[in-house]
């Protein structure tokens, strides 16, 4: 059972350092991203290169992280015509990207369980267990996107699941990534 406002990870713990500039907002429809999958990557590249990023390596990592959380939100969007909202903000030595989508109970439950596990267990072991598992079955969902982001990059993640008044999409899922730029090696 999901509570009316469930949070995991960095939600509720972040310091309120003001953004260095106005956050960027984008809104897209899941149907467009599903039909033209490459737009996830185009969006990620656009956001990663449209801000004051210190190096090409940092931009590449930011693009990778945004792409993974955006692809994740498309996969768990229940209604193709309800928008996915992306917000990117630059703070002191961090880049924060939040992606919001509308979801059914079953998808909200999957995300809730996923975040409980990744914040309770050792990421190193969990990542390779999941990689071995998905590599040895024919499952069409890799389930390693967010885990890989946490495993490979200086990133912390959070998730917020809120109930809505909409009976078809009773949940809004927000996933936020905080990327630590001073830990990105050139």
């Amino acid at each position, binding site marked *: 059972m999901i509570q009316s406002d469930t949070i995991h990870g960095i939600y509720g713990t972040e310091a309120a350092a003001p953004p260095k500039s106005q956050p960027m907002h984008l809104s897209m429809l899941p149907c467009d991203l599903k039909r033209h*999958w490459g737009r996830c990557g185009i969006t990620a590249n656009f956001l990663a290169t449209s801000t004051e990023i210190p190096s090409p*390596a940092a931009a590449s990592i930011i693009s*990778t992280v945004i792409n993974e959380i955006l692809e994740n939100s498309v996969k768990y969007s229940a209604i193709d015509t309800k928008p996915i909202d992306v917000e990117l903000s630059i703070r002191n030595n961090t880049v924060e990207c939040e992606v919001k989508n509308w979801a059914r109970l079953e998808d909200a439950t999957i995300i809730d369980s996923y975040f409980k596990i990744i914040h309770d267990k050792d990421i190193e072991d969990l990542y390779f267990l999941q990689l071995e598992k998905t590599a040895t079955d024919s499952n069409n969902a890799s389930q390693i996107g967010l885990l890989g982001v946490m495993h490979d990059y200086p990133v912390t993640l959070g998730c917020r699941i809120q109930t809505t008044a909409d009976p078809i999409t009773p949940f809004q899922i927000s996933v936020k990534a905080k990327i630590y730029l001073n830990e990105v090696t050139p």
Partner: protein
Amino acid sequence: MDNDDYKIHFDSPNKVIISGVLRLQSPNIYDDLFAPIRDTISQGQSMTMDIQNVSFLNSSGITALARLIIVARTHDAPFFIIGKEEIPWQKKSIVSLKRLWPKLEITLT
């Protein structure tokens, strides 16, 4: 096998050169793309994957790559990956794949 975003070229039956951006929708789409590689290593033959010019590979692609490594592990087929250190995802994600099979050979130029 070419696409606007990526190119897959077999230099020989045992060497494939991949370049571009691979951010496909699911691991199974990659499996279709990588079928000739899988067929070769399923016969215990060696395979070299040159991915030096792959600027991005998403998590579905990492999963598909892990599947190839598992096939090579199963058939003890020598498997070589050539990457580039200056490409962040290669430096981070490829090197750690060695944990799936310590006999995997990874060279970062």
